C-alpha cells in the first residue's frame, strides 16, 4: 500500500506522541500546503500487506507459519528511514519465539485473548492496560531475545478458530507502531477518544489491520473446514450447492445436493449456544489437524507476496485447480476477477430471503419486549455471459429497514422513500446480495410466558403458556418449534408434567420440549401450547472456577463472608436467595458473550418458518430484469429462523436494554 517511500529524501519529523503529526488527521491541513509530493508519501495511507502468519495449537506450538520476504523488506526499509539499525532490531521472530511470546502473554494477561479491560492485574505495557475490548483481537507480543534486547510485535490480529489460534501480522508504518507503543506505556488512568494519539485514530489510520482480519477469517474458515457458500433455498428440492457445482454443472454434471445438515436445520447445535458459553470454544472443532498443503496453496493464490488480492476461498481454489476460463467474452467488457468462469447451461436465477429473529420476551409491564430481525438476501444467478441484473427493492420504509449493506458487485441507488434499486453483475455460485436489519413487523411467531419458581433448594415448579403462529396465514409454515430450559449449573434429576402438545425429553443439563416436530409443520392456523410441571435437581456440589476477572478481585471479596446475612430468616424470596447463593460461584463470561447467561433462568425457543419474512421485506421476482435480456425463470423463497429467542423467567431476574428515545 501507500507506504513510506524507501528512498524519499524528505521525511516527516519524528512523530511520537504528537497528534498534530498524525498522518490521517492532518491531511486536510497538508493537502493545501505547497506540494512537496514526497512529503505526503510518508503517510501510511492504506493498502494491506502481511508480514507473517502463524497458527498456534492450544499447547502453544506452532502448527503452521508463513512469512513474506518482500513485505519484510519494506518493513526494514521503512524503519531504516527512521534511524540507523532500527529495522534490524525488530526482525520477524522465529516460530519458537512467537510461541513463547504467546504463552507468556497468556500468563501475563490471564487468558490467551487477554481481558480487554483494565483490571487490577493490568500493568503498563500489557494490552489490557489500553483498556479496550479490541485488544482481545489485535494483540501485541513481547519477543524476548536470549541475548537481551527484546522487542514488541504489533499489531498481531488474533482469531481463535476451533482450538487453533490464527495470528496475522500486517505491515504498519513506524509512526503508527510508535503511537501504539506510547499508548501502552502511558502511565495515566486510560485515555479517551478525545485525546491525542488515542487507539481509535491509530486504527483508523491502518486499513491493513482490517485486511488482516479478513485474512485471519478466511484462514480460520479453511482450517475448520467452514468454507461452505451462503445458502440459497429452492422451493422444490434441496438447497443448491456452490461455485463448484456451477463448474461441474457447466460441463454436464448434474448439481450435487448439499448434505442435509444445512446450518438452519440444526436446532440442537443452536440450542446449546447460549449455555455455558465459556466452553463453547472448546466444543467447536477440537484439535483436528488441518490440511497444510491446502492452506499453503490458498495463500499463494490469495495473497501473492503477502498482499491480499482475493480472499474468496471458492474463487482461489477453483482458479488454482482449473485455471481461468478461456471463453471469448460476449462483449467488450472486462471479466471481473471474482468471476473466473462464465456459466453455461440452463439459465435461471434464485433468490432467498433468510431471516434470523432475536427476541427477548418478558411478559412484564415494566419491561417492553425486544424483537429484532437480521436478514440477508442470497442469490444464485445461473446466467450465461456477463449480464447485468437489476432488482428493484420496494417496501423498505414499510419494513422499517434500519441498515443495509451489499455485496461488492452491487451498485445500489440512493434509497428514495420506499424504494431502492440494485444493479449487479452476479458472480458464480451462491452469494449474499444484501444484509439488512429490521424490526419484526408482524406478531412474534411464538408468544407467551415462562415461569419457574423454586419450591425448595432442589425442586422447581414451572409453567409455560405459549401461542404459536398467531396471525400467520398460509403460505407461512412453521417447520419445527422447540423450547429448551437450560440448567447449566444444575444437574437435572427428573421432571414431572405433560405438555398440552408435543413431546418432552431431558438430558443432564436441560429439558427439551418439542412442540412442532419436523415433518409435521404448522400452517394456516395458530395453536396454544401449555406445559406445567416440576423439575428436580441433584443436590449442588460447589465448584470454583477461575477466570481472568475473578482472580483479580477474589481476595478483595473474601471479607464478605464475615457479614453474610441469613436471608431465609427474613422471609425473603427463596428464588432470590438461591440465585444469590449460586452466583457466588458464577464465572465471569467472555466479552464476546452478550450477558452472564448462567445468572438467569430462561427458556430458549428454536424454530424455523418458511413461506414468508418476519420483517415484511420481500422482493418481487417479476420485477427482476436481466440485460442483455434472456428468458430465464426467477425463483424466490423465504425462510425465518430463531437466533436468540428467549423467554425470560417472569418470576426471576431478567436482563434488558434501554431503547433510544426519539431524539
Amino acid at each position, binding site marked *: 500500500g501507500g507506504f513510506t517511500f524507501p528512498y524519499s529524501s524528505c521525511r516527516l519529523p519524528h512523530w511520537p506522541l504528537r497528534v498534530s503529526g498524525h498522518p490521517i488527521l492532518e491531511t486536510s491541513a497538508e*493537502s493545501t500546503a505547497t506540494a512537496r509530493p514526497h512529503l505526503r508519501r510518508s503517510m501510511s495511507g492504506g493498502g*494491506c500487506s502481511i508480514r507473517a502468519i502463524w497458527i498456534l495449537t492450544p499447547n502453544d506450538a506452532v502448527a503452521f507459519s508463513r512469512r513474506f520476504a518482500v*513485505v519484510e523488506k519494506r518493513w526494514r526499509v521503512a524503519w531504516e528511514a527512521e534511524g540507523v539499525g532500527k529495522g534490524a532490531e525488530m526482525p520477524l521472530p522465529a516460530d519458537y519465539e512467537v510461541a513463547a511470546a504467546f504463552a507468556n502473554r497468556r500468563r501475563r494477561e490471564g487468558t490467551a485473548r487477554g481481558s480487554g479491560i483494565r483490571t487490577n492485574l493490568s500493568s503498563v505495557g500489557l494490552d489490557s492496560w489500553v483498556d479496550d475490548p479490541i485488544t*482481545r483481537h489485535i494483540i501485541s507480543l513481547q519477543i524476548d531475545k536470549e541475548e537481551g534486547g527484546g522487542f514488541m510485535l504489533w499489531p498481531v490480529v488474533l482469531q481463535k478458530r476451533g482450538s487453533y489460534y490464527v495470528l496475522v501480522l500486517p505491515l504498519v508504518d513506524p509512526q503508527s507502531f510508535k503511537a501504539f507503543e506510547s499508548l501502552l506505556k502511558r502511565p*495515566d488512568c486510560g485515555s479517551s477518544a*478525545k485525546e491525542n494519539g488515542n487507539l481509535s485514530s491509530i486504527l483508523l489510520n491502518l486499513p491493513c489491520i482490517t485486511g488482516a482480519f479478513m485474512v485471519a477469517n478466511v484462514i480460520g474458515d479453511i482450517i475448520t473446514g467452514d468454507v461452505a457458500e451462503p445458502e440459497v433455498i429452492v422451493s422444490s428440492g434441496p438447497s443448491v450447492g456452490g461455485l463448484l457445482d456451477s463448474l461441474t454443472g457447466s460441463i454436464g454434471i448434474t448439481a450435487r445436493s448439499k448434505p442435509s445438515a444445512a446450518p438452519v436445520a440444526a436446532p440442537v447445535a443452536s440450542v446449546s449456544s447460549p449455555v455455558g458459553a465459556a466452553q463453547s470454544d472448546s466444543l467447536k472443532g477440537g484439535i483436528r489437524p488441518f490440511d497444510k498443503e491446502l492452506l499453503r496453496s490458498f495463500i499463494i493464490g490469495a495473497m501473492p507476496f503477502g498482499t491480499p488480492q482475493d480472499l474468496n476461498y471458492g474463487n482461489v481454489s477453483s482458479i488454482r485447480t482449473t485455471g481461468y476460463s478461456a471463453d471469448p467474452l460476449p462483449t467488450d467488457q472486462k471479466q471481473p476477477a471474482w468471476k473466473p468462469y462464465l456459466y453455461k447451461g440452463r439459465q435461471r436465477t434464485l433468490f432467498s430471503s433468510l431471516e434470523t429473529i432475536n427476541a427477548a420476551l418478558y411478559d412484564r409491564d415494566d419491561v417492553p419486549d425486544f424483537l429484532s430481525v437480521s436478514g440477508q438476501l442470497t442469490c444464485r444467478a445461473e446466467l450465461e455471459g456477463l449480464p447485468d441484473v437489476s432488482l428493484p427493492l420496494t417496501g423498505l420504509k414499510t419494513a422499517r429497514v434500519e441498515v443495509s449493506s451489499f455485496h461488492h458487485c452491487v451498485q445500489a441507488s440512493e434509497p428514495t422513500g420506499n424504494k431502492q434499486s440494485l444493479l449487479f453483475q452476479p458472480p458464480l455460485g451462491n452469494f449474499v446480495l444484501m444484509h439488512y436489519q429490521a424490526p419484526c413487523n408482524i406478531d412474534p411467531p411464538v408468544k407467551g410466558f415462562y415461569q419457574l419458581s423454586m419450591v425448595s433448594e432442589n425442586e422447581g415448579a414451572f409453567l409455560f403458556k405459549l401461542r404459536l403462529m398467531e396471525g400467520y396465514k398460509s403460505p407461512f409454515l412453521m417447520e419445527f418449534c422447540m423450547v429448551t430450559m437450560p440448567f447449566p449449573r444444575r444437574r437435572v434429576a427428573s421432571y414431572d408434567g405433560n405438555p398440552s402438545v408435543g413431546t418432552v425429553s431431558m438430558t443432564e443439563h436441560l429439558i427439551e420440549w418439542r412442540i412442532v416436530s419436523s415433518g409435521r409443520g404448522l400452517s394456516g392456523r395458530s395453536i396454544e401450547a401449555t406445559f406445567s410441571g416440576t423439575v428436580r435437581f441433584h443436590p449442588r456440589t460447589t465448584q470454583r472456577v477461575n477466570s481472568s*476477572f475473578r482472580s483479580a478481585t477474589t481476595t478483595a471479596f473474601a471479607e464478605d463472608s464475615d457479614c453474610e446475612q441469613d436471608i431465609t430468616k427474613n422471609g425473603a424470596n427463596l428464588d432470590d436467595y438461591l440465585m444469590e447463593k449460586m452466583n457466588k460461584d458464577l464465572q465471569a463470561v467472555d466479552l464476546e458473550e452478550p450477558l452472564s447467561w448462567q445468572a438467569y433462568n430462561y427458556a430458549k425457543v428454536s424454530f424455523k418458518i418458511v413461506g414468508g419474512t418476519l420483517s415484511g421485506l420481500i422482493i418481487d421476482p417479476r420485477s427482476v430484469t436481466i440485460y442483455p435480456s434472456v428468458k430465464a425463470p426467477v425463483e424466490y423463497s423465504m425462510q425465518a429462523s430463531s437466533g436468540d429467542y428467549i423467554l425470560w423467567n417472569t418470576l426471576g431476574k431478567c*436482563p434488558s*436494554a434501554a431503547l433510544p428515545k426519539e431524539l
Partner: protein
Amino acid sequence: MDEALPGLLADVLGHAYALASAERSPAAQSYILLLASAARGAVRLGRLGSSASILAVSGPPVPFSVPAHLLSSPPPLASAAPPSEQNVREIRKVLALVMERPQVLTPAAAMEVTAIVAEVATAVLEWAPAIAAHVKVQFSGMAYSSSPMLLHSVLTLFAKFPDAFGAEDERKMARRLASAACEAHRPLPVRLLVLHWLLGSGRFRDSVPGLAKWFYPGMFDPLALKAKKLDCLGFVAATVDSDKVEGGSYGQQTTEFIDDGLVCVSAFRWLPAWSTETSVAFRALHRVLVGAAPHGTNDKGCSGAGELLNSTTFHHFQAMLVDMASEHRSLVPVIADFINRLLACTTHRWVGEQLLRTFDECLLPRLEPGYQLASYYPLFEKIAQNEAVPQLRLIELLTKQMVCLAKKHDPDTELKSWSQGSKVVGICRIMLKHHHSSHIFLPLTHLLVRTIESFPDLEIRDHARYL
C-alpha cells in the same frame, strides 16, 4: 518484483498501460494492480516533473533490464519539480483506467487500488483538482458494501481528499459507521473497528452526538460491543454536556445517556463483583469522566476540570456512586478500585479526591455500625489515606463501630470482633500516617482510648504497629 524493487516498472509504464487496457480476462485485475503499482513508482521517483512523457515507450519491454536508479547507491533524490502539463494529463489517463470499474475488483484488490489511487492522485491534485471529485464518484459507493475492507478504503479517501467530501458526506459517512456497528452479520472485531473509525477521525466527531440512538447497546450485543457503544454514548454525553455550558438546552439528556446505556449491564449491581458486566459498567463510568476531562498533552494539565466539577454529569455520578455503595455492599471494593485508578493518575487525582469527599459527606452519614460495615473498610482506607479529605466523620463512624463491636463482644463473637476491630485499628494507623494535623488528634485519641478500654490486650499486641 515491483513490490520488492520499487520503481522497477516506472520506465515501462506505457507498456503496463497497454497491457492493462487490453486485458479482458479475469486476470485484468492483476494488470490493473500492476499498472497502479508502476504508476506509483513513477510518481515516487519524481518522473512527473520530467519533460518526457511517463507513458512513452521505446521499443518492446525487455525482460531483466534493470533501471539505473535501482543500481545507484545511495538512491537518487526524487525530483521535486512540479509535474509537466503533459504528465498530469497522462497520469490522469492512467488513473482513469485504474478507477474505471471498481466493481470488477475483489475487495482486497480494491483496497490496494484505492490506496495507490489516493497517493498518486494526491501528488497531482494541485494541478488537476477535478481528480478528487472523480475519485469520490468512483469509490464512494463502496461505503455501503458488506466488506469492511471496502468501507475502510473509503475512509482513507475521506482523509486524503477532504475537499471532495463535504459536510453532508461526512454526516452520511458517520451515520453509516454508527449503523454498521449494529449489523449483526458482521464479525465482532469489525463491529468494534467501525466504532473506532468513527471516534478516531476528527471529521466525524461533530456528527457523533446526533447519532446517539445508534449507540444504545442492544440486548444481545456482545459485551465487548456494549462496552464500545458505551464509549460512544459517553462521548456523546461529554460533548453535549460541554455544549450545555455554552447555553444549549439539553437539560437532563446527558445523564439519561449514561443511565440508559448502563441498563444493558445493570446486572452488575447484583452479580458478583468480578462479573464481566461489572467491569464493563465501571469502565464506562471511567470513560465518561475522562471524556469530560481528558488528559492534557503535557502530562500535567487537565482540560475541562472546572467544567466537569460543575457539570450535571458529575453531580449525577456522585449520587450514583453513593447510592451504589450504600445499596450494594459487594460493589464497595470495585468502587474503591475505581477511585484508586483515578488517584493514581496525575491528571485525575483531584477527581478521585472529590469522590472521596463526596463519600465522606453523603455516604458515611447513611452507614450504620455493625458487622456489615466491614464491607466498607476498603473505602475507609482510601479516605484515611487522603489528606484532602476530612476525617472527622470517619472517626466518628469508626468510634460508633468500636462501641458496637464491644457491645456484641462475647465468647461466640470473639474472633469476629477481633478481626473487625483490628481492621478499624488498621484504618486509624493509616490515618495517623497520613494526617499530621492536630485536628484529628483529639477524636482519634478518643476512639483509641475507647478501643483500649474495650479490648484491654490490644495495646500490648499492637503497640509496635503504631510506630
